[in-house]
């Protein structure tokens, strides 16, 4: 049980590092939103499962399970709301500006 808790805590720490790097480095709203949403959901859910393994069987496990179910429903919904808000505000998605300099190509 303790070993499984360590494994899930390690997975959560790894995904939090990846989410922070993605949110800081990525060039656009939509790519930042993708990094934030997926990595944050996975990381927080892994940390909650690790907390359940550490706490053992008791009232803490049930409350963490309720929090995990609520978070697992609401975080993709909030990401969808942010993406729809950005799309309705007509924010332009990021493209490679590499092809735009060549005159003949019309693929972007």
């Amino acid at each position, binding site marked *: 049980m303790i070993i499984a808790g360590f494994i899930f*805590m390690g997975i959560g*720490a790894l995904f*939090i590092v990846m989410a922070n790097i993605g949110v800081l480095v990525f060039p656009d709203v939509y790519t930042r939103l993708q990094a*934030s949403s997926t990595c944050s959901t996975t990381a927080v859910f892994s*940390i909650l499962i690790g907390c359940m393994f*550490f706490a053992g069987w*008791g009232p803490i496990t049930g409350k963490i399970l309720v929090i995990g179910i609520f*978070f697992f429903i609401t975080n993709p919904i909030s990401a969808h*709301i*942010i993406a729809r808000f950005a799309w309705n505000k007509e924010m332009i998605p990021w493209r490679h500006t590499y092809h735009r300099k060549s005159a003949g190509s019309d693929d972007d």
Partner: protein
Amino acid sequence: MDLALELMVYFLVAGSSVSAIRIVIGPSIVDRLIGFSMVSAQVLALLAVLSVQAGRAIYLDVALVYDIFGFIGLLAITRYFSTRRENL
């Protein structure tokens, strides 16, 4: 086990302060909302870890209410700014 929980507390505080940089330097409102969502998720995990570390089940009510208020706050902010006619 205690060492892992202690390290995870420091790690989550560092991660939430790193993703608060996106709130400060975000060029538009959507970037600030993304930073707000990240900070909210990491503080939720921090509250759960602190509750397990203290061994008290009643601290988790704070985490649940914090998560609900973060979601409702995000809904309110998007609904407020979707009715305004201005450049972001």
